[in-house]
């Protein structure tokens, strides 16, 4: 048993300091945790956790059934939800998640004037915007990439020969990664761009929902209802990223293929570029 005296006076620190990129990671991590309800009541955590579980549900269901039923339907179950179809199934969930997450990342900082505190420390405008983008992207990847990856790993595990399955489907891994990144980046950028225009979360959420839903319904009505030019599908902002991810997989035989894949990819790129430009424009002159 020994006693120890602790010196609680302020001491200088001359040890190692992290390089500037560490600030980016720190900003992203703290922002993401805050937006997902860390240190807040269970009500703040409820929606993010629920939506994440919903996104995993199809993968859990398919793998559970395969585990229970066994090899008899081994070849059929993967096709119940093919990889290219997975993001279509959870597209609405991802959109709702982004609609909740993105305003939480930007609006409280604007409301409490925290941006000026960040900018007056060691964070530049570009680092701030990049940190917030990362804070949106990483949690969204948990919905757009991890469930499909889980399905891929499960399918590999349940296959008669894991090595044969991997040899046949190794390209699917990269398609899954690219799809997840594309969808998560798209909804992150659009969500953050909308949220950057207001300090009120409700307005940001409403604006994002309107931007994603109204053009989608209008475009659908014009093309599939009124029979106008099929290129008008490209104004369907809510459908663009899903169609673009589906186009990454070969052999899709649905309506998306009425337009070549590069149309969807180009349209996604344009929307993402405009969103990034909006975001940058909103923060380039923000006061410190």
């Amino acid at each position, binding site marked *: 048993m020994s006693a120890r005296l602790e010196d609680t006076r302020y001491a200088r620190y001359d040890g190692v300091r992290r390089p500037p990129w560490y600030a980016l990671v720190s900003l992203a991590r703290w922002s993401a945790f805050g937006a997902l309800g860390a240190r807040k009541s269970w009500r703040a955590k409820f929606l993010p956790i629920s939506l994440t579980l919903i996104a995993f549900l199809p993968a859990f269901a398919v793998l559970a059934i395969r585990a229970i039923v066994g090899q008899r339907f081994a070849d059929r179950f993967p096709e119940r939800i093919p990889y290219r179809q997975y993001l279509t199934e959870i597209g609405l969930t991802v959109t709702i998640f982004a609609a909740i997450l993105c305003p939480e990342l930007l609006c409280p900082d604007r409301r409490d004037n925290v941006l000026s505190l960040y900018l*007056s420390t060691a964070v530049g405008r570009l680092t701030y915007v990049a940190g917030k983008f990362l804070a949106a992207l990483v949690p969204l990847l948990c919905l757009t990439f991890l469930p499909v990856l889980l399905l891929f790993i499960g399918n590999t595990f349940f296959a008669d020969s894991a090595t044969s399955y991997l040899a046949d489907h190794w390209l699917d891994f990269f398609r899954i990664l690219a799809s997840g990144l594309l969808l998560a980046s798209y909804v992150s950028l659009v969500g953050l761009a909308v949220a950057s225009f207001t300090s009120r979360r409700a307005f940001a959420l409403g604006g994002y929902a309107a931007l994603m839903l109204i053009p989608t319904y209008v475009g659908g009505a014009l093309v599939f209802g009124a029979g106008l030019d099929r290129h008008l599908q490209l104004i369907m902002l809510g459908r663009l990223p899903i169609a673009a991810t589906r186009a990454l997989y070969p052999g899709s035989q649905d309506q998306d293929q009425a337009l070549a894949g590069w149309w969807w990819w180009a349209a996604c790129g344009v929307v993402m570029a405009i969103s990034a430009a909006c975001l940058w424009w909103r923060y380039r002159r923000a006061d410190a």
Partner: protein
Amino acid sequence: MAATAERTTIATTGLTKRYDDIVALDEVSLELADDAIGLLGANGAGKSTLMRALLGLVEPDAGTARLLGIDAAARGLELRRRIGYMPEHECLPSWMTARDLVVHLGELRGLPRRIAVLRTSEVLFQVGLEEERLRLIGTFSTGMRQRVKLAQALVHSPELVVLDEPTNGLDPQGREEMLELVRRLSRDLGIRVLFSSHVLEDVERTCDAVVVLRDGRVAAQGRISELRGREAGSARISAVGDLGALRAALTARGVRVEDGEEGWLAVHGDPAMLPDAVRDACAETDVSLRALLPGDRTLEDAVIGAIA
């Protein structure tokens, strides 16, 4: 030469900043190396603009600004990682705890996470918020928020802290405590301080040197003791009795006597002889000497003289 630049706390040359037709800073040139420097001036005198220019947050229209020898315009980010800044305005996230915010801002300035957590405990203890560290900032009083702002400015062990009106909005007790904290920074903790205020007493109590700004121009700068301008061979006396006889007795001893404020007499003479001459004159005329004080000007006199 490099060591000299490093030792200089503030150095500006011809610093000018305009906002449309308003000249916020007008060719401000300073060079001060003291540990605690006060920026004094009325609201709108240019204090905040000067601070923001020194931090590299405002791009000057002309001139240069250096803090700790670092060019603020060219190396603003690097500078802000090395120093601490306590903004004047409300800027704390209401949804974070004091501990989380200070850890976070420590990490933003390059502290490894474990170190940031350790140092956060230290600085929250130093500013008197250790017990409240896990409370949400949104529930804090103004005084506690000011302490959080000070803690975040100190967490990364800065060489210098820039404090923009840290006593704003505080009650008398809170103000006393904040001034004591600020004084401790340079006196006990070895951190250089740049402190802005429009309250002269606050600057006088916490700083070694002062820059007085008026309408964006430097009205006065230098060490406070020098600005007071101690006049060797001058004193102020307060006495009760026949003051006419006292004046005559002092004059007979070669002391020049002038009327001072509120019944005080200002006396000027040979510094070595003056106290004895006053004592002897009082004894000779049977006048009771109530006070004999050095003939310093107050900082207030100096400031008023500078801006008049």
